[in-house]
C-alpha cells in the first residue's frame, strides 16, 4: 500500500512489515556508505601518496 494511502487510513505510519523496508534499506545504505566510502577514501590516499 502506498505511504499516502496508509497515512490516510491510519492517521499515522503503520508498523506493518511492508513499512519496515525503508528502515532496513537505511541499514543497507549505512553499510554501503562505510564500504564504498572506506575503499574510495583509502584508495585516494594511497594514490595521492599521503
Amino acid at each position: 500500500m502506498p505511504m499516502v494511502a496508509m497515512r490516510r487510513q491510519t492517521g499515522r505510519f503503520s508498523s506493518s512489515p511492508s513499512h519496515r523496508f525503508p528502515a532496513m534499506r537505511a541499514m543497507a545504505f549505512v553499510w554501503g556508505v562505510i564500504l564504498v566510502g572506506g575503499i574510495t577514501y583509502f584508495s585516494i590516499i594511497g594514490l595521492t601518496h599521503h
Partner: protein
Amino acid sequence: MRAKEFVKENSLSLFFLVIFLLALIGQAIAGHNLYNEEALAHKEETISFWRYLTSSDFGNAVMENWQSEYLQFALFAFATVWLLQKGSPESKELDQAGTESDEEQKVGRHAEEDSPFWARVGGVRTAIYSNSLMIAMALIFLGSWFAQSVTGWTDFNQEQHDHGEPRLSWWSYVGSSQFWEATLQNWQSEFLAVGSFAVLVVYLRQRGSPESKPVGAPIHDATGQEG
C-alpha cells in the same frame, strides 16, 4: 516505526556497526600512538591524529584486513554452492550440490508474487541477481585489496625514501614479498577460521544460534540444519 521496533529488528547489524566503529576508533588511536613512538625512536617528526587518519600507514592497516574478510565471505558463499561438509549446518544437504533448479530457487516462472522483480523477470537481470551477493563480496574484496596495494605502495616508498633507497613502481610493489606477506598472513587466518568452523559445528553446539545445529541433533546427520 518506533525506535524500539527498529532496534529489535536490526539488533544484529546495529550491534556489529557499533563494535566496528569502536574497534576502528581504537585502532586509529593505538596506531597513531605507535606511529609517533616509532617516529621519536628514529628522531623523526611526530604527526597529528588527523594527519594519521589521512595516512597510508593507517589506510594500509585497515584495508589489508577488510580485503581478507571479504575474500573469506565471497569464497565461502561460492564454495558452498558445490562443496559439502557432512553434518555441518553451514553446508547444504548432501544431494543438493550445485546451483539447484529454477523451481527450488523460485526464479523466472517459478517466482512467487512477492519475489524480487529481478528474480521474476528472467534473462540477464535474473542471472545477475542470482549471483548478486557473490558479485558484491568479490567487488568489495577487489576494491579493498587494491586500496591495500596503493596505501602499502605509498608507505613502502616513503620508507625507501627515508633510507635513501630507490622507489618502486606500483607493479613492482604488488609483486614484492612485502605485499604478499601482508596479504597472505591475513588470508591464512581467514581460511583457518572458516575451515575449522565448518568442522567444529559438526560436533559442537551453540544453543539458539542459526550458526549451530540444534543441541540434540545427531553428529553426522542434520547436514544443513540450523538450530
